[in-house]
């Protein structure tokens, strides 16, 4: 198999995150969080993966505009699709975690609303795609949309929550991130590997989608 090592690495890293994340020592005594701190290795990497996939899509959009090669349109759209999957998983897991720490499924919070609007921006990307029939036109329109969407997404999901005055979510507003809670470095031993594993898995799923889209596109051209 061609270049399979990183896919195996993804699987091994996530298995380590599952086993290590549940069994290795962690700060289990943090206020309302308690043992659910171990969600860190699963909920947070969803968002990191989404951001990386959207970055690849963004690069695909720029390359499309530079070369007019439609394969970059397949790349941009496939990576957005996979990114939305991870974003929705991130929202669902975050909402569930919130229910049993903050006591409610959703709160009016800069981090939560920013993330929700961020995902909607990319759902709109799909509505835009489906509204244009011509391939070439669609590729250019959506690439330009992507050019604006990604920086706004980053602002909504990272910068705007940090600027908020108060927040319940860690590392936004007046709250601290996990790095200040992880005094024994126990979380780090799993977290970094988990993030790498999930990002690799996301890239894998997105490239599968990309390759399939390319097969279909070339097939239609013939």
């Amino acid at each position, binding site marked *: *198999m*061609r270049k399979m090592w990183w*896919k195996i690495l993804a*699987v091994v890293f*996530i*298995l380590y995150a*599952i*086993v290590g994340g*549940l*069994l290795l020592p962690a700060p289990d005594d943090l206020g309302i969080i308690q043992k659910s701190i171990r969600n860190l290795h699963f909920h947070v990497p969803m968002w990191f993966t989404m951001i990386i996939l959207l970055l690849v899509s963004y690069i695909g959009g720029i390359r499309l505009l530079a070369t007019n090669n439609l394969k970059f349109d397949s790349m941009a759209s496939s990576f957005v699709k996979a990114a939305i999957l991870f974003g929705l998983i991130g929202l669902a897991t975050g909402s569930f975690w919130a229910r049993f720490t903050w006591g409610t499924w959703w709160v009016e919070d800069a981090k939560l609303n920013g993330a929700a609007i961020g995902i909607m921006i990319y759902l709109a990307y799909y509505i835009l795609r489906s509204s244009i029939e011509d391939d070439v036109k669609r590729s250019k329109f959506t690439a330009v949309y992507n050019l604006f969407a990604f920086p706004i997404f980053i602002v909504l999901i990272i910068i705007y929550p940090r600027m908020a005055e108060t927040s319940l979510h860690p590392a936004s507003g007046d709250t601290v991130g996990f790095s200040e809670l992880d005094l024994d470095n126990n979380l780090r031993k799993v977290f970094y590997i988990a993030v790498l594993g999930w990002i690799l898995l996301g890239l*894998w*799923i997105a490239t*599968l989608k990309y*390759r*399939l889209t390319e*097969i279909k596109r*070339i*097939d239609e051209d013939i």
Partner: protein
Amino acid sequence: MRIFSILGLLISVPLLAQTPMDDLFYSSGKIYVVVAIMSIIFIAIALYLFRLDSKIKKLEKEQEE
């Protein structure tokens, strides 16, 4: 025939009293059972992805020809 001997082994496992495996999976409030189940689910999903990967690869090869 080999599959039957493996099946037989699996069925007989619960009949064996206190294997080293039992010691592990009955300890620590059975958290190891959760770990095992999550691992099984994830490995299954990974295997599915590998299969999908090889199928797409086959399609790509067919298209090149």
